[in-house]
């Protein structure tokens, strides 16, 4: 039995396993504080130039593939986009009017003005590196003002939240991530204002849970963030309801949501810079 301990290779192996447990424990501790662990920072500093290069080359080739599409398809898309711009401009004018009115009314009844949010543009340099977690790496970090808990969005809606920040990188966990330590996002039905919690399932779909049995929700409803908890801003699109079911026991309802943004197909995004408690 003792001869095993005289074998240097086995001793190295056992020591490395003990070190792995130590590193894992330290990592969990630092992550629960929202900061990054220094060995991870070191690896990310080394790997970032490679990630930027590979992501750039990938983007270049997908750009070529897109431009190879037929001229007709582009013209059709261009016409559709022109119409969309006209429609959105009209909508913008009325939204600005309503926002101004809301500000005036808030001031009249003495409500505190919400702090304005800043959108920081970021590039996603690595995404979905494992089947078991839906995470991504951003090309900017603490030095750019990113903090743990901040929301990551595109013009189409919410992608996820920052969960770990290094000086020059940040890790994002997508709302579709189904791992145990992901608590979900406060959400509501835009039409009826019914609130619930949107949870990832590890697949491409989301689950809206904790809805009362008589909640007003139906297929096609748009789901937005509720802003509850004060971490993720209110009103960001999450997705659309594709099915509603009553849970066993009949006391609760839940809905399956198709997210409006897919992390795997996103190259650029914005981090919502706001104070996070």
């Amino acid at each position, binding site marked *: 039995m003792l001869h095993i301990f005289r074998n240097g290779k086995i001793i190295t192996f056992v020591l490395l396993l003990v*070190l792995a447990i130590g590193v894992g424990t330290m990592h969990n501790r630092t992550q629960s504080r929202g900061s990054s662990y220094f060995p991870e920072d070191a690896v990310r500093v080394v790997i970032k130039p490679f990630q930027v290069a590979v992501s750039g080359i990938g983007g270049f080739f997908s750009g070529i593939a897109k431009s190879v599409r037929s001229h007709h398809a582009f013209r059709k898309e261009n016409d559709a986009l022109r119409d969309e711009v006209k429609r959105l401009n009209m909508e913008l004018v009325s939204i600005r009017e309503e926002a101004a009115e809301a500000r005036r009314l808030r001031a009249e009844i003495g409500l505190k003005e919400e702090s304005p949010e800043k959108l920081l543009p970021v590039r996603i340099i690595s995404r979905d590196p494992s089947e078991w977690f839906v995470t991504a790496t951003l090309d900017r970090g603490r030095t750019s003002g990113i903090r743990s808990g901040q929301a990551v969005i595109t013009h189409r809606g919410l992608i996820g939240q920052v969960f770990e920040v290094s000086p020059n990188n940040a890790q994002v966990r997508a709302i579709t991530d189904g791992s145990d330590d992901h608590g979900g996002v406060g959400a509501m039905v835009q039409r009826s204002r019914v609130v619930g919690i949107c949870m990832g399932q590890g697949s491409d779909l989301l689950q809206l849970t904790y809805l009362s049995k008589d909640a007003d929700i139906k297929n096609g409803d748009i789901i937005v963030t509720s802003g509850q908890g004060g971490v993720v801003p209110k009103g960001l699109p999450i997705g659309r309801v594709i099915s509603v079911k009553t849970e066993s026991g009949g006391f609760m309802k839940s809905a399956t949501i198709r997210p409006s943004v897919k992390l795997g197909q996103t190259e650029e995004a914005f981090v919502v810079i706001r104070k996070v408690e």
Partner: protein
Amino acid sequence: MRKYVIPVLMLVFAGALQGNIPSWMVIKGARPDLILVVLITIALGLDPGAGAVLGFLAGLIHGSIVGVSLGSFIASCTIIGFAAGFVTIRMFSENPIVPVIVAGVLTFAGEIMFLLTNPVAGFLVSLNIVLFKTLYNSLLTLILFWVIRWIQIRRKIKMAAARL
């Protein structure tokens, strides 16, 4: 120390590629694990101790890119690196069937080990993904093994020619 430089660079490059795998390469939810493929292929040419060290570094790289469960990534890769190195001293690894089988067995075992420490919902779905990943990694290991062998043969021919 010098023997780790090129393998580590290969692992770093595999890590950068791992985070940019195009969606058309994802089959039934499974994507190739390039870091594991590089680790197994290289560790087959090392002794178990060196394989474990390389596995530790591979796990650190993979865990840092994912940002979650760093300890589980390091532990499973260390075991895989050690096992791959162990195979080299026990079996004849020049035969391309050996790395393919080793990659398959170690990917399957490594993923099951990882899932045991990080339980995810839907065991059957996860098992399906693991099986596809096992096939993917075995195939890629065969390709990488041939590439490495081709480079080694070319180098030997050049060295022989230089001696002449």
